[in-house]
C-alpha cells in the first residue's frame, strides 16, 4: 500500500503538489478564523444544582433541601458520584457523571427530575436549578465599577439592569457573577416598639404589605365594533404609596404601614461584598459557556463594554475593564509561541541548508513543517476542537520532528540521485526517487507509529490530567502521522520535480558533511576498538543518570506566568463580611505597595447564581500585574505570600488563575490519609470524629490532623418553650415566621420603576439586625392580643454550629485528614485502621472509610503502569517488525536509559521539576531516538543483505557515515527547533513546553551520541549480521 502511495506521488507529482498547496491555503484560512483558548475543558462531567434557601441554617438546608434533591437525582443513568454541601441559606448538590456521557443529556435528565422536587420544598425556598454550564476555566473577564458620587445601591441597580444584560447578550457568555454593591429593595422596616404600641403582629403587617403590591389583570370588554382592554392601576408600588397602606382600623383611626415601619428603598441583606483598590465597589466576573472560546468571547464582550464605558464615564463612574483578562495570557502566549515558531523554523532552515548545502532540498524538507502542522490543525478543527495552549504545545514539540521524516526522505533521495548521476547508465529519475523513498520507508513508517504509540498511555490518563494532556498527545500524534503522510507523498513528488527533473546536483557531499566524515570515521574506529570501555562507560553514565531521578521534585503543572494571581483567604467561619472587607482593604494596600502590581480587587462571600459555597469568611483577590517577565512575576508572588504570611487569622493561597481552577476541579482531599465517617446522626459523627482525631494524634508520625467540617460557626439557637406557647395561645409556626420575616426578610411583591423591577420586602429595622442580644426582644402577638417578647416563649442560646454539612453519595459524612512524616505510610495506615476499628464503636448505619491520596495513588499508579506496559509491548512489536531480530530490539532498548539520562541532566541544569509535561518530553524523546536507531540498523542490514557487503569495520563506517547526515540533521533540527522554548521557558506560553523542550534537547544530545558513536560499536560486536542470512524479514 505504501509503495503504491509513493509510486502515485512520483507519477502524479503535479496533483500531489497542487493538493498540498490547496491544503496550505485552506489551512491558513481555517487557522485565521479559529478561536483560541487557554486550556481544553478539564472539568469532569458535572451538573451542579444550586438552591437558594434564604434564612435556613445548614442543618435545615441539608434536611429540607439537599436530601430531597439527592433522592430525586440519585440513580440517574451514568451518575458516577454525588456530593453535596449544605451551608446557611444555600444547598449545592454536585452530580458527577461518567466521562463518556453527554453533558447536555445529563443536564436534561437532572432538570426533569428536579421539576418534581421544586413543589415539595418548604415555602420560601427557591426552585433548584442547575447552574449555567460554564467552561472549565470559567472566567472570561473580570471587570468592576466604583463611584464616589453614586451610592452602592444605585450602582448595583445600574450593574444589574444595564451592564449585566448587555454582557449576557454576548454569544458565549454563560453568566455574570456580580459581587458587592447593594441590591435595591423597597423595604418595609419594622419598628418593634411601634408594633407593641399598636398591638400589631409581624404577620398582620406582612399581610397588609402583600396587599399593597398586588397587581391583577382585568380582562376586556367587547362590543359589536371594538374590544377594550381593562387595565387597573392604583396598586402603586412607590415607597410613599406603600407607606400609606392601612394595616387595620383601631378606635376609629387607621393604622398605616408608616406608623409601624419605615418604608424606603434599602439594600437587601448581603451575601457578598467587593472592593477595588481597597475601596467599596462592584466586581463582575464574566463566565464563559461550556466550550466557548475565551479569546473570541473576550473580544466580543470588550466591544460591548467600549460603548458602555463612555456612558459610565459621563455618570462619574470609574470603570475597571481589566481587573483580570485571561485572554491577555493567551495573546502573550501566542506571541511567544509565534516567535518561537519563527526562530525555531529559521534554525531548521539553517541546519538543513548547512547539511544539504542545497536550497531546494532545504525547501522540500522545511515545507514538511507547515504542511504537517496545518494538516494536523485542520483535523483537530474539523473534530470540533478549539485551539488551546495544550494543542499548540503538542504542535510545538512536534515542530522539530515533523520535519524529520521529510529530511530522511529528501536526504536519501538526494544522495541516491547524486549516485545515480555517476552511474554509466543512469536509471530513470522516477525509479531512483521511488526506490530511495522506499529504502527509508521502514525507519520512517515504523518510527512514526512508535512515536505515536508511546503517547497512548498519555491519552488514557483519567481525570484532570487526562483531560488536560490528552489534547497535547492527540495533536502531537496527529502532527507525526500527517508528517508521515507528507514524507510519503509531497516529499517524493517535490524531490522528483525539484531535484530530479530540473535539479543540478553536485557531485560531492555537502562541505559540512565532507568535514565531519573523517572525524566521525576516526571516532567509530576508536569506539569499535575498545568495546568493553565503551559499554562500561555507557552503563556507568546511565546508572548515574537514573540515580538522580528520585531527587528531582515533581508537580502537576509548572508555574504558569499568566501575569495575574488569585489570592484567597479564609478566616474563621462566622467572620462578618464587614471584617472580611476590612482585612481585605489592609491586604490590598500592602499588595499595591509591591512593585509590578497593577490592580487589586477583592470579593467576599458569594454571588447569586454561582456554584460557590463560600461564606462571608472567605475572600478572593484578583491581583493583576504589569507586563512582567516570568522571574519578576515570581518575585511578586513571593512578595504576596510574604504579606499574607504576616497577616493573622487567615488561611491563604496565592496561585495563578489556571492552577487555581485546576485545583478547584480536583475533587477529594489531597491529604495522604483520609478517614471518612458515614452515618445519619451528626452528633454521633462529630463525637466519633473527635475520637478518630485523638487516635490519629496518638499515632507516631501523624501531623496536621484536621477535622474537615468542624463546629465553630456562631449560631443563635432559638428553642421554643412549648408549654409557654400553649398557655399564651401561640403556634410554633407563628414564631418561626416572625423570626424569618424579621431577620431574613420576606418578599411580598414587586415594585416597578420603569422597566426595573425591585422586590418589596418586610424586614426588621436594620439597626436591630446588628445586635444578637436584641433577638430576644422580638415582639410577638398572642391570640388574645397580648404582646410578648421572643424571650418569653423561647430560650435563646449562642452555640457553635456547623458552617456546612457534607454529603457523599447522599450520606452524611465527616472527614478527618492527616499527613504522615518520618514513617512508612503502609504501616501507619495499618495501625490507624486497626486502632479505629478496635477502639471506636460505631452504631448501626455508621461506618468508617479509609482512603486518601496515599491509597488512591497506589491504585492509580497500577493503572498507569498497566497502560504503559501495553503500549511498551506494542512499541516492541513495532521495533521488531522494523529491525527483524530480537537481538536488535534489545540493543535498541539501550536508547531508553541513554535518552533518559540526557533528559534528567537537562532537568537538573534548568532547575525544573518533573511534571506531566516532562513525561511528555521523555516519551517524545524515546520515539525520536528509536527512529534514529532503526534507521541506522536497517541501513547496516541493507548494506549486508542487499548490497552483499561483508560485515566489517569498513561496512560499519560506510553505513554509519551514510546515515550520519540524517541522524545529525534530525537531532539538530529537533533540538534547535526546541531551543527558543527551552531557553527562558519561564515566560507566558512556554511554561509547559519549556521543560519538555529542555528534556528533549538534553535527551537528543545523549541519545545522538549513543546512536552515532556507541550503537555502531555495539552493533559491530554484537550485531551478528552473519547469522541473519536466513531471516525471512526483507528490506525494500
Amino acid at each position: 500500500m505504501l509503495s503504491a502511495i509513493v509510486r502515485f506521488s512520483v507519477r502524479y507529482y503535479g496533483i500531489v503538489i497542487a493538493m498540498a498547496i490547496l491544503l496550505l491555503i485552506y489551512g491558513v484560512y481555517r487557522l485565521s478564523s479559529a478561536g483560541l483558548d487557554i486550556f481544553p475543558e478539564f472539568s469532569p462531567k458535572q451538573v451542579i444544582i444550586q438552591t437558594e434557601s434564604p434564612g435556613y441554617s445548614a442543618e435545615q438546608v441539608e434536611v429540607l433541601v439537599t436530601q430531597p434533591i439527592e433522592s430525586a437525582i440519585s440513580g440517574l443513568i451514568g451518575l458516577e458520584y454525588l456530593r453535596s454541601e449544605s451551608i446557611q441559606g444555600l444547598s449545592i448538590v454536585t452530580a458527577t457523571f461518567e466521562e463518556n456521557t453527554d453533558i447536555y443529556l445529563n443536564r436534561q435528565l437532572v432538570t426533569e427530575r428536579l421539576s418534581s422536587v421544586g413543589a415539595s420544598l418548604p415555602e420560601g425556598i427557591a426552585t433548584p436549578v442547575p447552574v449555567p454550564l460554564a467552561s472549565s476555566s470559567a472566567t472570561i473577564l473580570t471587570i468592576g465599577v466604583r463611584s464616589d458620587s453614586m451610592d452602592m445601591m444605585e450602582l448595583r441597580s445600574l450593574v444589574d439592569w444595564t451592564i449585566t444584560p448587555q454582557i449576557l447578550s454576548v454569544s458565549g457568555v454563560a453568566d455574570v457573577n456580580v459581587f458587592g454593591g447593594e441590591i435595591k429593595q423597597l423595604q418595609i422596616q419594622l419598628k418593634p416598639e411601634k408594633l407593641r404600641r399598636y398591638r400589631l403582629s409581624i404577620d398582620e403587617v406582612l399581610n397588609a404589605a402583600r396587599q399593597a403590591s398586588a397587581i391583577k389583570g382585568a380582562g376586556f370588554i367587547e362590543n359589536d365594533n371594538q374590544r377594550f382592554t381593562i387595565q387597573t392601576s392604583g396598586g402603586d408600588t412607590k415607597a410613599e404609596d406603600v407607606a400609606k397602606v392601612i394595616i387595620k382600623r383601631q378606635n376609629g383611626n387607621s393604622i398605616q404601614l408608616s406608623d409601624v415601619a419605615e418604608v424606603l428603598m434599602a439594600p437587601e441583606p448581603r451575601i457578598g461584598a467587593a472592593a477595588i483598590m481597597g475601596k467599596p465597589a462592584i466586581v463582575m466576573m464574566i463566565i464563559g459557556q461550556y466550550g466557548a472560546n475565551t479569546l473570541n468571547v473576550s473580544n466580543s464582550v470588550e466591544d460591548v463594554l467600549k460603548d458602555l464605558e463612555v456612558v459610565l464615564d459621563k455618570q462619574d463612574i470609574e470603570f475597571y475593564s481589566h481587573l483580570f483578562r485571561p485572554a491577555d495570557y493567551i495573546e502573550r502566549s501566542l506571541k511567544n509561541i509565534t516567535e518561537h515558531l519563527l526562530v525555531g523554523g529559521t534554525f531548521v532552515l539553517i541546519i538543513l541548508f548547512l547539511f544539504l548545502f542545497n536550497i531546494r532540498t532545504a525547501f522540500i524538507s522545511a515545507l514538511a513543517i507547515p504542511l504537517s502542522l496545518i494538516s494536523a490543525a485542520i483535523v483537530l478543527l474539523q473534530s470540533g476542537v478549539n485551539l488551546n495552549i495544550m494543542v499548540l504545545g503538542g504542535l510545538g514539540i512536534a515542530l522539530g520532528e515533523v520535519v524529520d521524516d521529510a529530511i530522511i526522505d529528501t536526504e536519501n533521495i538526494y544522495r541516491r540521485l547524486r549516485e545515480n548521476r555517476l552511474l554509466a547508465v543512469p536509471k530513470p529519475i522516477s525509479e531512483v526517487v521511488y526506490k530511495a523513498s522506499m529504502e527509508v520507508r521502514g525507519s520512517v513508517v515504523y518510527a512514526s507509529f512508535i512515536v505515536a504509540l508511546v503517547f497512548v498511555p498519555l491519552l488514557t490518563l483519567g481525570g484532570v490530567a487526562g483531560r488536560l494532556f490528552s489534547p497535547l498527545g492527540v495533536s502531537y500524534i496527529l502532527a507525526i502521522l500527517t508528517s508521515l503522510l507528507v514524507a510519503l507523498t509531497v516529499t517524493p513528488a517535490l524531490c522528483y520535480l525539484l531535484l530530479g527533473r530540473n535539479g543540478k546536483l553536485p557531485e560531492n557531499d555537502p562541505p559540512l558533511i565532507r568535514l565531519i566524515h573523517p572525524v566521525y570515521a576516526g571516532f567509530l574506529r576508536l569506539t569499535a576498538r575498545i568495546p568493553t570501555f565503551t559499554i562500561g562507560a555507557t552503563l556507568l553514565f546511565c546508572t548515574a543518570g537514573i540515580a538522580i531521578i528520585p531527587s528531582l521534585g515533581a508537580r502537576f503543572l509548572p508555574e504558569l506566568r499568566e501575569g495575574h494571581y488569585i489570592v484567597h483567604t479564609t478566616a474563621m467561619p462566622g467572620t462578618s463580611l464587614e471584617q472580611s472587607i476590612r482585612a481585605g482593604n489592609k491586604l490590598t494596600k500592602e499588595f499595591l505597595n509591591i512593585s509590578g502590581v497593577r490592580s487589586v480587587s477583592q470579593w467576599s462571600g458569594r454571588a447569586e447564581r454561582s456554584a460557590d459555597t463560600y461564606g462571608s469568611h472567605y475572600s478572593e483577590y484578583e491581583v493583576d500585574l504589569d507586563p512582567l517577565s516570568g522571574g519578576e512575576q515570581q518575585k511578586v508572588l513571593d512578595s504576596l505570600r510574604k504579606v499574607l504570611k504576616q497577616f493573622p487569622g487567615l488561611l491563604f493561597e496565592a496561585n495563578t488563575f489556571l492552577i487555581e481552577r485546576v485545583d478547584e476541579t480536583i475533587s477529594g482531599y489531597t491529604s495522604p490519609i483520609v478517614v471518612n465517617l458515614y452515618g445519619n446522626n451528626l452528633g454521633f459523627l462529630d463525637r466519633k470524629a473527635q475520637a478518630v482525631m485523638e487516635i490519629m494524634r496518638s499515632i507516631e508520625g501523624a501531623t496536621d490532623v484536621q477535622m474537615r467540617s468542624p463546629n465553630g460557626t456562631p449560631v443563635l439557637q432559638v428553642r421554643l418553650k412549648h408549654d409557654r406557647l400553649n398557655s399564651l395561645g401561640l403556634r410554633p409556626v407563628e414564631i418561626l415566621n416572625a423570626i424569618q420575616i424579621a431577620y431574613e426578610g420576606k418578599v411580598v411583591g414587586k415594585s416597578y420603576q420603569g422597566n426595573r423591577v425591585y422586590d418589596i420586602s418586610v424586614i426588621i429595622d436594620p439597626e436591630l439586625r446588628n445586635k444578637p442580644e436584641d433577638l430576644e426582644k422580638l415582639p410577638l402577638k398572642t391570640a388574645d392580643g397580648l404582646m410578648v417578647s421572643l424571650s418569653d416563649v423561647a430560650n435563646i442560646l449562642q452555640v457553635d454550629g456547623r458552617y456546612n454539612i457534607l454529603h457523599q453519595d447522599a450520606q452524611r459524612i465527616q472527614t478527618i485528614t492527616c499527613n504522615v512524616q518520618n514513617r512508612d505510610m503502609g504501616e501507619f495506615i495499618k495501625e490507624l485502621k486497626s486502632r479505629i476499628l478496635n477502639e471506636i464503636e460505631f452504631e448501626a448505619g455508621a461506618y468508617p472509610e479509609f482512603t486518601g491520596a496515599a491509597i488512591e495513588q497506589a491504585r492509580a499508579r497500577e493503572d498507569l503502569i498497566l497502560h504503559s506496559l501495553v503500549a511498551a509491548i506494542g512499541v516492541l512489536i513495532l521495533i521488531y517488525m522494523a529491525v527483524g531480530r530480537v537481538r536488535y530490539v534489545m540493543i535498541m532498548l539501550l536508547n531508553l536509559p541513554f535518552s533518559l539520562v540526557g533528559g534528567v541532566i537537562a532537568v537538573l541544569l534548568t532547575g525544573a521539576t518533573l511534571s506531566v509535561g516532562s513525561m511528555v518530553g521523555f516519551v517524545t524523546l524515546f520515539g525520536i531516538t528509536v527512529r534514529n536507531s532503526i534507521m541506522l540498523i536497517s541501513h547496516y542490514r541493507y548494506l549486508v543483505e542487499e548490497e552483499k557487503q561483508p560485515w566489517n569495520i569498513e561496512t560499519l563506517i560506510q553505513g554509519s557515515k551514510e546515515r550520519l547526515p540524517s541522524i545529525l540533521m534530525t537531532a539538530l533540527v529537533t533540538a534547535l527547533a526546541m531551543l527558543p522554548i527551552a531557553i527562558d521557558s519561564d515566560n507566558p506560553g512556554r511554561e509547559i513546553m519549556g521543560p519538555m523542550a529542555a528534556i528533549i534537547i538534553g535527551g537528543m544530545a545523549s541519545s545522538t551520541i549513543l546512536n552515532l558513536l556507541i550503537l555502531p560499536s555495539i552493533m559491530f560486536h554484537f550485531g551478528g549480521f552473519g547469522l541473519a542470512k536466513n531471516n525471512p524479514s526483507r528490506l525494500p
Partner: protein
Amino acid sequence: MKKIIKIILLLVLVIAVFIGVRQFSGDQRFVVTLDQWLDQFQESDVNNDDDNLDDEKNNGSEEEDDDIPSRVEIHEGLPAVRLNEEVMDRSGILTSSLQVVSHLNEVRATGIVVDFQPLLVKRTEFQKAKTDLVLIEESLQASTKVYERLRVLHKEHANISLRQVEEARLQMTEYKARKIAAKQLIKNIRTETMQEWGRELSIWALGREDGKKESSTYFDRLLNKQDVLILVTLPSDFLLPEATSFVYVNTHPDRSTARKAYLISPATKTDPLTQGVTYYFRTSAENMRTGLFLTGWVIVSNEVETGVDVPLASVIWYGGQPWVYVQVEKELYSRRPVANYRETDFGWFIKNTFKQDEKIVIRGGQLLLSEELRWQIPDEDDD
C-alpha cells in the same frame, strides 16, 4: 501473517487516535480514572515545600499557609495570640484602654405621656356633685324648718291644716333623700376616680375624703401644663424599689439627656400589652405632648456600680458566651469571658472583669479568634 499483525496494530493506533480526538472534543469513550495521579504530583510538591521552603520558587501551588509558625501560646493556662505592633497595625486590629466608669444600677422601662382630661372631667363632675349637695342641704334645712313650724302651728290649732303639714314633711323627706343621693354620687365619683387614677391623683383632683385641704401645687402644675402626667410601665416581674421617688425618662432611648420624673402613685392597672406594673409620674412638660411614648430608666439601687463600658464591636461570641480580647502582655492578647453585662448606650457595662487602663481589642477581635483557632478554619480549596 506479518501483514495481518501490521494491519491490526495500525487499526489499534487509529482507534487510539480516534479515542483521543473524541475525548478531546468533550465526549470521551473510555477513561481510566487517574485523578489521584495528580494528587501524587501535588503531594510530592507539598512535601518538597515542607522540606525546603527555599524551593518555593520552583514549586508553586504549595499549601502556603501550612508553614506559618504558630502565633498562639499559653499565658496563665489560657491560649493567647502574640502579634507585634506592626502586624496589628497592618491588619487593622485596634486596641483601646478601658476607663473605669460608675453607673447606677438601672432597669429600662417604657412610658407614655397620659392625657389626664378624663381626670379633669371627674373632678368637674365631683365638684358639681358637691355643689348640688350643698344646694340640697340648704333646701333640706329650709324645708325642715318649714315643716317644724307648720307642725307646731298645727298642734297648737292654728289655722294650719294637716294636709299642709304633710306636704311640708314630704318636701323635707324628699330633700333628705336627695341629700343621700348626692352624697352617694360624690362617693361614687371618688371611688371611680380612685379606681381609675389611683389614690394620690384622685386626692389631688378631688381632695381628701375627710374634707381636709390637700396641697394641689402639683395638680395645678399639671393643670397649667407646666408638668405632664406620665404612665411608666416596668418590665414584667419587676416592682418599683420602695425608696424610689423619681425615675429618668426621655423621648429617645438616650440616657444621657434623660430628665427626672417624680413618682405620684402606683397606677391601678397592669399594662395589658406587656403585663408590666405601672406607675404615674410627673415631669416637666417641655417638649412633651400627650400620647408621646417615652423610655424610662429606673434606679434599682442607689449603690453606684463601678465597671467598664465595652463597645459592642469588641465583643466576640464563641462557645456559647461572649468574649473580649485583652492585652495581657506587650504584644500578647488573650480572650476573656464576659459573664455579667448590661446594655448601655455605649455598648456593654461590665463589672468585675476588667481593670482600669487595661487594653482591649476594639476592632479586629474576630481576626484574633481566627488566628487562635486557625486549626479550625476549613481549607476551602481542599475539598
